[in-house]
């Protein structure tokens, strides 16, 4: 488990990091908590020749009440998201979901921004922020821009981030008392979800996103549409996989995964409706 050779630079600020990544181009990667990238490098599935360590960029670790939304610095650790009183009050779904990422060691190292930028469809955080209608703030050589979560995920481990851009902040709308549920189905506690569901409901509005139901995190729009039209929870849940293209793997056939999505969406909506 020895990665291929690489160079390493530590950035002191977002600007410095973006400058460095710009110099080294496609072969460079940001290193935050390292809990997605390092395992891939050890298996030599990823072989970046330059790592730009942003782990010590201190001013990107924060959770702030910004009025209608909560602003979360991209380098905030999962454990801080999980334990945040601000998030527990205003975005309890996200705080709760963060508690399901990996194990305690992973949550103390891994970052919310790293998880989103890695764009793993099996990650808990990408789908949860997608369900919540989050906006991601990214910074490049020419300044910052915002990308809606629903426009961010482009393919398996692919996002709308340009090679010289860095995710710096996640803006998550307050839930305003919406009912919510996070369903993570797996075989061992520390595993990625075989299927996961992040869902919230507030009067006619809802947001439902699926973990590990395709090459990207999936927004189950058909479920929300059905609910908006007054469908029952059970009827709406039957549309759980309409927007998904699940793959088979060692833990689940396509058929089983599709079935699980329906069951878990139903359970999530039942819980969110209470």
């Amino acid at each position, binding site marked *: *488990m*020895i990665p*291929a*050779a690489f160079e390493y630079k530590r950035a002191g600020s977002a600007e410095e990091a973006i400058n460095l990544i710009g110099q080294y181009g496609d072969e460079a990667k940001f290193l935050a908590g390292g809990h997605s990238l390092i395992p891939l490098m050890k*298996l*030599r599935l990823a072989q970046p020749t330059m790592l730009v360590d942003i782990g010590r960029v201190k001013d990107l670790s924060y959770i702030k009440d910004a009025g209608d939304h909560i602003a979360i610095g991209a380098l905030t650790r999962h454990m801080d998201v999980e334990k945040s009183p601000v998030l527990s009050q205003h975005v309890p779904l996200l705080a709760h979901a963060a508690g399901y990422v990996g194990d305690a060691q992973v949550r103390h190292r891994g970052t919310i921004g790293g998880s989103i930028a890695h764009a793993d469809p099996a990650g808990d955080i990408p789908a949860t922020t997608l369900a919540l209608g989050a906006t991601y703030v990214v910074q490049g050589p020419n300044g910052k821009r915002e990308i809606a979560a629903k426009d961010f995920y482009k393919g398996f481990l692919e996002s709308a981030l340009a090679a010289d851009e860095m995710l710096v902040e996640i803006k998550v709308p307050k839930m305003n008392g919406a009912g919510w549920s996070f369903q993570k*189905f797996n*075989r*061992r*506690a*520390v*595993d*990625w979800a*075989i299927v996961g569901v992040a869902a919230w409901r507030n009067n006619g509005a809802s947001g439902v996103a699926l973990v590990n139901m395709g090459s990207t995190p999936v927004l189950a729009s058909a479920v929300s549409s059905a609910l908006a039209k007054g469908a029952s929870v059970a009827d709406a849940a039957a549309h759980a996989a309409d927007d998904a293209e699940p793959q088979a793997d*060692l*833990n*689940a*056939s396509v058929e*089983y995964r599709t*079935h*699980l999505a329906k*069951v878990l969406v139903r359970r999530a909506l039942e819980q969110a409706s209470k």
Partner: protein
Amino acid sequence: MSITQERTNSIIGQRMLRREDPALLTGEAKFTNDLVIPGALHLAVLRSPYAHARIKSIDVTDALTMPGVIAIYTGKDLHATWAAPMPCAWPVTPDMKNPAHFPLALDKVCYVGDGVAAVLANSETESRDALDAIDVAYEPLQAVTDLEVALSDKTIIHEAIGTNKSYTWNLKVEATEGAVDEAFKNAAFTVSERYIQQRLIPMAMEPRAVVAVPQPFGGDITLYSATQVPHILKVMTAITLGIPEHQLRVVAPAVGGGFGSKLDVYAEELLCVALSRKHGAPVRWVEERTENTQSTIHGRGQIQNIELAADKDGKLTAVRVRLIGDMGAYLQLVTPGVPLLGAFLYAGVYDLPVAYDFSCTSVFTTMTPTDAYRGAGRPEATYAIEVAMDALARKMKIDPYELRKRNYIKKEQFPYTAFSGLTYDSGDHLAAAEKAMGHADYAAVRKKQATQNVAGARKRLGIGMTSYFEMCGLAPSRVLASLNYGAGGWESATVRVLPTSKVQVVTGTSPHGQGHETSWAMIAAEKLGVAPEDIDVLHSDTAIAPLGLDTYGSRSLAVGGVAIAGACDKVIDKARLIAAHQLECAAEDLEFAQGTFSVKGSHDKAVPLAAIAFAAFTAHNLPDGVEPNLEAQYTHDPKNFSWPFGAHICIVEIDTETGKVDVLKYIAVDDCGIQINPLIVEGQVHGGVVQGLAQALYEEAVYDTDGNLKTTNLAEYLVPAACDVPPITTDFTVTPSPTNQLGVKGVGEAGTIGAASTVMNAVIDALSGLGVTKLDMPASPNNVWKAIQAAQGGK
């Protein structure tokens, strides 16, 4: 002198904390890869990406120019180095086929992970980088991953032997000829079941690691290896490399688990020794986790067909078993013997007439070689009979516990001569089962189940049980001879009382997590009346403990521990002569208790062992004919296997929508005779149960049809973690072994032997109301859901 003079409590039976743990828990323990060896070269092995392919060419030109690379060898380059192929010590039949197997493949690779080339470099990183620069041209051939297809010989893996079949081994015992067929003809009930023992990856926490260090002069070499078997490794390395055995020393430093996977002689051990001799430099290697999944042996891998015949009351009248064993690509050290270790146990703990028909045919496949994995043959056998017993109970529409009660060998029948001729020395299956039933509150669970498992219930309750024998403590040497095993089953111990009355216990067992240092000190402390902390246990180095047959098959206590007691007896016998001389009395007038010899009836005439030890050291005043020093060596060859037994019960709840199995409760009632240290016994039961439960619910080495292993890391191969396993209730009955002086039996494999069938019986019990009566392991959510769908669709 700290010999405890006034010790009334027995040391045996105390829950002493393990003396090994402080070093392990603080990271101070030195594993093989922790050894600092100046000037060592690093070995990396290029492995085949193909399951079955011809090697057309190997181009190392570019790789040789990589930084730090010293040399690269192919199988052909090293062929003259080997005096013999890699060893298989268990030719189970005279006509067994055993293809020549060398540390690096010659012209063909036969599994993904087969070694193709060896790189030596100045650093681990450089050796690893160079692998990517070696260019091998392969001609891919058809992979063979299905045992029945393998048997058809459609694609022959080893052309030199002309068949994929390694051997067929039969054990047919009948009171009169045709008795088995007759029993099946006359049976009131029969069942015919087919089970798959999936391949398992042992996944010791420490992967394998090796360092070979040539000594400066004279050709001696020290081999450090993460092995369970330093003694066997020494003999086999000497033979395979043609090195004089006395020039080889093998050391197993701290070893982080084995479960049988380090009971072997591996290519990398031989490569390190051969290349260190060639280069006159130390050579080291450590296994990557992915390599570990591909190139360390796998366990299980059987197709089992079992048929039971029973009379109208459910009394078993005959058992017929047909196995196909998956050997993998080559025979490793004891590969062919593994299915046969279970051959005597397919009638389980039941009183079967002499009507038993067992046959095992073993085949080569293009997958990682299999070999002994915790339980080795016995979990498979126990699984088959115990799951089949539940099938029989369902067929008869009687309670599975009731069926077992009608068939148990009764307490008063022990010692019991089985159909096989083996003697089960002791047991009380009903007592163990009753105790387990009490913990489970069986009647209440059945009652709850009747109300819960109604049509349409989202969660269904199930309860399952197993009664087992662990046939272990390998083994009586004469029995091993009859099985054609290539070695004996004895164990050696030396007990040495030093001049200051501290004690050294030298054992031939080789612990890798079992806590031998703690337990062996307790045995010697009990025997000699010395405090355990005054006893040092020396092991796992052939220079310090030259005699031994190592640790596997739950043998260490039942054979090696008993050897220590025997050596203590010899020490005491010698000390008694010296004591009698000092006290001027007859030796037979002395009694020995709590470390002191005293004259029977006059306790003021006494001499402590400490004084005798010093007297034996100075030798100023010893009786005529008594040699100086207080030391004795004893070799124990057991008269019989040890026969631990027990009853396990599992209660599960299954979510019928998702197929997820939740284990609510697991109860293990085990009987391993006298317990030296109950804390360690419980730890063994916990670990064993988790490994059996893991086979039932989590683990499977998955191959695709091209022979690629799909589970090559711990995210894909699902070893359950502490938070994934249920609380385990452990309880015990104590039936001392009548065949050794300590009354002990093995316990290392008991949990694994009992658990898989217990869990699966509970799962099927929960689902049988839905029409699911068969389910392959692991009972993953997907598999359970699919079985429910199939059963419901079929209605």
